[in-house]
């Protein structure tokens, strides 16, 4: 498939992203999944210095989009690798420790799980319970948008 055609379809599918200023996305510092936590123990994880430093600021993170909890959910889960199991659906599966919950500024279309995406949003750390679903998260991106890499 010619690149131009794919690009047009992509833009059509993601109107919110198309309207996003390109500069703002490029300027946000990048955070990787390996940089989220500074220490791991069975007694708990500790946030990395980088996460504490960037809290409240706009950051970019690359990862994979897990299938949404429900179509109308206001958030989705970003994972380091594509999720082989769906913890929302299976009674036996569970989320990995290092997930990031993404709250979108505008609705965007679900991206196939085999595709890497880059999400830009305001970083927030610390335990928080989603009021609609009860989903507990430690790391969030607020007012976020994403695009394919």
């Amino acid at each position, binding site marked *: 498939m010619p690149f131009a055609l794919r690009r047009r379809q992509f833009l059509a599918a993601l109107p919110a992203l198309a309207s996003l200023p390109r500069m703002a996305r490029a300027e946000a510092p990048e955070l990787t999944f390996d940089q989220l936590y500074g220490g791991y123990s069975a007694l708990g*994880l500790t946030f990395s210095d980088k996460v504490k430093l960037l809290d409240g600021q706009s950051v970019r993170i690359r990862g994979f989009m897990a299938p949404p909890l429900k179509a109308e959910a206001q958030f989705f889960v970003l994972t380091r690798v594509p999720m082989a199991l769906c913890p929302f659906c299976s009674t036996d599966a569970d*989320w990995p420790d290092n997930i990031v919950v993404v709250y979108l500024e505008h609705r965007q279309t679900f991206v196939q*799980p085999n595709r890497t995406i880059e999400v830009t949003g305001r970083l927030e750390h610390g335990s928080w319970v989603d009021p609609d679903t009860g989903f507990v998260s430690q790391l969030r991106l607020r007012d976020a948008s994403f695009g394919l890499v």
Partner: protein
Amino acid sequence: MRALFLSLAATTILAGIAQAEPAIMPLDRATILAGSPFDFKIELDQVHAAADVAVTVNGQPYASVFGKPAEFVAEEKGKDGKVLGSALIARGLSIAKPGDYTVAVTAGTETKSVTWTVYGTPAVPTAKNVIFLLGDGLSVAHRTAARIMSKGMHDGKADGRLAMDDLDHMAFIGTSSTHSIATDSANTMSAYMTGHKSRVNALGVYADRTPSSLDDPKVETIAEALRRTTKKSVGIVSTAEIEDATPAAVVSHTRKRADKAEIVGMIYDVKPEVVLGGGSAYFLKSGIPGSKRKDDKDYISLFRDAGYTVATTATELKAADGSNSGKILGLFHTGNMDTKLDRSFLKTGTVDKFPDQPGLVDMTQTALDQLSKNPDGFFLMVEGASIDKMSHPMDWDRAVIETIEFDQAVGVAKDFARTHPDTLIVVAGDHTHGVSLIGTIDDDKPGTEMRDKVGVYDDAGYPNYTDADHDGYPDKIDVSRRLAIFSSNFPDYYETFRPKMDGPFEPAVKTETGDYVANEAYKDVPGAVLRVGNLPKSADTAVHAVDDVVLQATGPGSDEFKGYMEQSDVYRVLADAFALGAAQK
């Protein structure tokens, strides 16, 4: 076509006439340990007045036999508020006298009767200790592959024997669940640990129709029976989250194995003296990064306050083993522990984050050291969890290495029994996988496609694994002529014909429509080919097989294992060995 139409019409007519039957729990043909508490429930299909519901036991009014009346629920409601019918519930009944008990209910036009068998046990135990080693998903192919990989083979004869190869009594075990021929690790282990079959995802309960997962009719677990009748210690060891289905079945009651936060509370209620495994996320109060609880219960502190030594690394476990507290809570990972291949050889998975995890062999040894201090004896359950967890994604190299590790834990148990001959050892899978060893894969065979390199029949020859350090594990997993193992069932995935050196295999990923598609991360592995799945697209990984499990045992009481047995019958052998029908405290 005409025949099909006629038979469909006949079915429809029959369904129209058939009267929906009430459900009585425990179900027909249930076997119940004399004196053990259980919940009794009748679910009627329609709404009735209490006075219109008549229940007898062996022809007598039920309350006189059970010793108390049941609570009448005029209208049970479903999730959507729909009325399901009336119900009768009596909790914590027990029947002291062995024999057959026929329970009959009549309500309007609804009738149903079931017969339970209440069994006693010898008055005197034959075994002081029971070590129950459970290889999750352990199938025949796992054992054969582990024997060849670990011990080698030439001239058609194995060069050595697995520890489990010399257990002298055995039985084929039927694993099916109460609503399906197929099965999962919850209802299967629950059958072993309670003597009652149950439904997929259920632990220590019969599955009822109400939406709550915590109100289903309970049956007694072995840990509860031991607390009720003996002064023995209880130990639970697993490489999974300790609140995962298999270890949970030793103590838990829930319709839904995913109730992990509640299951941790159930472990705490029973307080097994030794609890070793992964899954600390559900012990940490919410707010702590890594916690998966939604409340402020801090089970680490609660266990500490109850006198437990808490260990979070192999080093701390070794120190705890030397302590005299007699109670150890060892949690070595927030989730499932890494596999032996990742932990000890490849350093992949999450080993960089949790670098000092003990193995199943060390955990088993520590548990035996601690539990054997009790002069009254113990029950220890040891689970090799990732035989199953690596068989689902068809990561056969990891699954076989897990089987070798599990077998070495069986060796530790056998060593213990050598000096403690009053110990019954049981080794079994909980269910099987559709896995077979069919030959070898030889990189040096001619051909461009990887399938050309699959050696079958005479061409398979022998694999070229080596074990120079004699640790029982191959020095290298990615040898040039390796075992060819395949699954009978699979989602769409890329078959690479090679060990997964970068971390456990994830064959398929989910789309937004709920379908699973092949994980493209493996698309570009040299020689990888797409295999279009033969499972529904909703299946995330390979599934459990319905095939029988092989159970093996040795020690006092093990001669009761023979022929074909229902999984729930295994509990009766344990109950006989411990004489759980007779109070000993």
